[in-house]
C-alpha cells in the first residue's frame, strides 16, 4: 500500500504539477486536489503503465452516476491505491 501510494502520489504530483507534500492518503483526487476528468486521464494512463493494469474508469464512473458507489470509494487516494493493489493481485493470479 505504501509503495503503491508513493508511486501514485508521484504520478499525480508530476502529471498535475501539484506539490508532492500536499498529497496524502486521505486526499480526494477531485475534491481536495482539484484534479478534473481530463487530467485524470493522464493519471490513469500513467498508473496503467506503471502497474501494468487497466483502471476500470468507465465502470467506476457508471457506478457513481447510478448511485451504487461514492466518489470517495474510488478517488480518495488510499482507496484508489487499494483498488490498484487488487487489480495487480488479480492480474498475478
Amino acid at each position, binding site marked *: 500500500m505504501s509503495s503503491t501510494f508513493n508511486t501514485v502520489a508521484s504520478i499525480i504530483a508530476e502529471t498535475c504539477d501539484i506539490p508532492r507534500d500536499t498529497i496524502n492518503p486521505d486526499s480526494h483526487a477531485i475534491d481536495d486536489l482539484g484534479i478534473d476528468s481530463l487530467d485524470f*486521464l493522464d493519471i490513469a*494512463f500513467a498508473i496503467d*503503465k506503471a502497474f501494468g493494469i487497466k483502471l476500470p474508469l*468507465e465502470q467506476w*464512473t457508471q457506478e457513481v452516476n447510478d448511485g451504487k458507489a461514492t466518489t470517495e470509494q474510488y478517488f480518495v487516494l488510499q482507496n484508489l491505491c487499494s483498488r490498484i493493489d487488487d487489480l495487480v493481485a488479480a492480474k498475478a493470479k
Partner: protein
Amino acid sequence: MRIEYFQLIDRITALNLFDLTIRAEATVPTTSTIFEGHFPGRPLMPGVLLIESMAQASGWLIIAHTRFERMPFLAALKEVKLRTFVTPGQTLAVSAKLVHEGSGFAVTKAEINADDKLVCNAEITFRVVDFPKGEFLASMQEVAKRIALPTETAAHG
C-alpha cells in the same frame, strides 16, 4: 482531402490490427478559401489541420480496432511538433500507432511525412465512448468506405 468538410483523410493505405498501426494518404487541395487567408500570397496548410489529420488517422485506427463499437473524440495533445511547412498540392503520409487502450480513453502516437521528410508528430489522447448508432454510424461507415478502410472492419458495424 475534403478540407471544407473537415474530412482530411483521403485513403487508408495500410491497417494492421495486430501491431495496431495505420497508414493513410491525404493530399492537400491546390485551392481553398482557407489559403486565401492563411496566408495571402503565401498559402500554407494550417498547423491545426495537420494535427487534425493525425487525429483523424488515429481515430480510424481506434474505430477499426473496436470494429465500430467505440468512437474516439480528441481530448488532449502532448509533445506536438510542427517541423516544416506544408503547401497546397502536397501529398501527406499520415501514420499512427495505438500505444495505450485505457478504460474510456486511448492514446496514440502519430506523425505525418511528406516527400520522405517528417512534417509533424504528436502524442494524442482520445476519450472513447460507445459508438453512436443510427445516422451517425451510417454516415461514418459511408466515409469509411470512401477512404477504403478495410471492409472486414467496416462490415462489423
